């Protein structure tokens, strides 16, 4: 073979696609940023950001979103880590069934999920298979809706969280770790909380950040369940303001960027994709 064909040509088309891709990525962000800086006539400034961040409702709704994200992450970890661990160690025959369940959220979009949740939980809670009431509908009081929305968010994050945890456990060989810990006299609680959890912390962090990215801007579950989080707030703000929503949109983007950037860093480029918006 001739030398000339061995030497790589300048990859012209690759550059064309890449630059087109970069433009598609960057232009909307640039446009939003540029727009958010022009709140005052003939001046570039951060007025829109000042105004947006000065709003009390922004902090209360945003804080509430972060609170819900934290609850979702904590309860997900408490539920999924022992389950994945147990399946690896004691119950491999349940693996296919559980993996199938963790994929179901891909089939049930958020709008359907919230529809079903409202249908089920807007009637009074009864003892199963009877009409004897146990309490009022979950959608009628604050704690009830919080339980529903955290449960719903756990469903949305389930595929990512489960996969992260399961992959993490595959790489650290939980069986050997467990046997070593038990031979040193550790009980189940100590094994899970002090041996397994610290060993899968990168997997947990990446699952948690992905869940965070899903929950913080989420609008479907929140608005239909009537929970005042950041998503519905931003939507309403967009109905009667122009510049502040742009400022918050750009901020949201930076947050998503931070979450994904950290995932990339800690997992060494093995980032995951989420989807279904």
């Amino acid at each position, binding site marked *: 073979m001739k030398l000339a064909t061995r030497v790589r040509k300048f*990859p012209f*088309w*690759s550059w064309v*696609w*890449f630059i*087109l*891709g970069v433009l*598609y990525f960057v*232009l*909307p962000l640039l*446009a*939003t940023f*540029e727009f958010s800086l022009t709140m005052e006539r003939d001046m570039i400034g951060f007025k829109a950001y000042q105004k947006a961040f000065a709003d009390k409702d922004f902090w209360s709704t945003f804080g509430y979103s972060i609170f819900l994200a934290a609850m979702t992450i904590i309860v997900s970890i408490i539920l999924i880590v022992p*389950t994945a661990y*147990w399946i690896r160690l004691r*119950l491999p025959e*349940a693996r296919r069934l*559980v993996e199938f*369940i963790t994929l*179901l959220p*891909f*089939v*049930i*979009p*958020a*709008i*359907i*999920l919230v*529809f*079903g*949740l*409202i249908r*089920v939980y807007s009637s009074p809670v009864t003892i199963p298979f009877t009409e004897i009431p146990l309490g009022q509908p979950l959608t009628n009081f604050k704690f009830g809706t919080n339980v529903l929305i955290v*449960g719903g968010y*756990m469903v949305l994050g389930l595929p990512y969280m489960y996969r992260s945890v399961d992959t993490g456990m595959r790489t650290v060989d939980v069986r050997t770790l467990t046997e070593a810990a038990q031979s040193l006299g550790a009980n189940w609680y100590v094994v899970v909380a002090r041996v397994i959890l610290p060993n899968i912390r990168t997997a947990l962090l990446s699952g948690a950040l992905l869940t965070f*990215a*899903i929950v913080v*801007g*989420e*609008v*479907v579950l929140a608005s*239909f369940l009537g929970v005042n989080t950041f*998503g519905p707030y*931003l*939507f309403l703000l*967009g109905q009667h303001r122009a510049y502040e*929503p742009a400022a918050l949109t750009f901020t*949201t*983007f930076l947050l*998503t960027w931070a*979450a*994904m950037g950290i995932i*990339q860093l800690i997992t060494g*480029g093995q*980032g995951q*994709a*989420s*989807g*279904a*918006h």
Partner: protein
Amino acid sequence: MTQTALPASRMRTPRSKLRNWIGVIPFFLFAILFIFLPSVRLFIGSFTNEAGQFTFENLVELFSQDYIRNSYLLSIQISAVTALGGGIFGFLLAYSVTVGGLPNSLRSALVTFSGVASNFAGVPLAFAFVATLGRTGFVTVVLKEVFGVSIYDAGFNLYSFLGLSLTYMYFQFPLMVLVMTPALDGLKKEWREAAENLGANTVQYWLRIALPILLPSMLGAMILLFGNAFGAYATAYALTGGRLPIITIQIGAQVRGDVLHNPNLGNAMAMGMVFIMAISLAGYSWLQGKTERWLR
């Protein structure tokens, strides 16, 4: 007496096997409360009439009422168009950073950015596109003042099928990049060398070797994109305010207030969506199985 200090490796008896299932009860309880009960309720509802009796009426109405059928069609069209467009563009991008000869540093930048963009959706995405391609958007104005092209005079409208598709593309093609980059890595150098030694040119190599190997994973990824767009609600609602009646928006209206005056018809609409999503997921996993034969 003998119960105190048993070693970890206990003998496995059938009874302890059954006891093992106790460990997964909390997970199944969660799945029943937040996944199964809501879906079963919608499922049963879609086969029930207002008197509470079993019926196929709701399903028949899905196809006989024009505006429901059209909503499904519109959703399917927009999902198919963005899956195909996002799929092709995403594939070309993934190609350019893997086997396309671009520097490796660009690859990790692209993958990171794709991770961000595929998660950047809903209300913020809609606002970003209004600032970009809206009537006074950045790109609209630049095209008008610098290039003298007025896209709105030419018939473009962000709040239309095309506008929504362009917006969806922002999370569609990055997802394709994320799925296809590892698949393209699976193309072995030896295959190309073997093909060249046997006298194949680049076009022959791609048409006869690389693309047939990649085809299942490309199709599978595009099905994934289809489902991704099909279930989207917030982006469309925030952008068009419900003027483009895709199926998720119709279901949303039904949840807010019984606009159809038949709650069970709403259930049937939801089940129809789940049905289409389930078919696409099944297609995806079937194609995944085909892919793993070659790309490992």
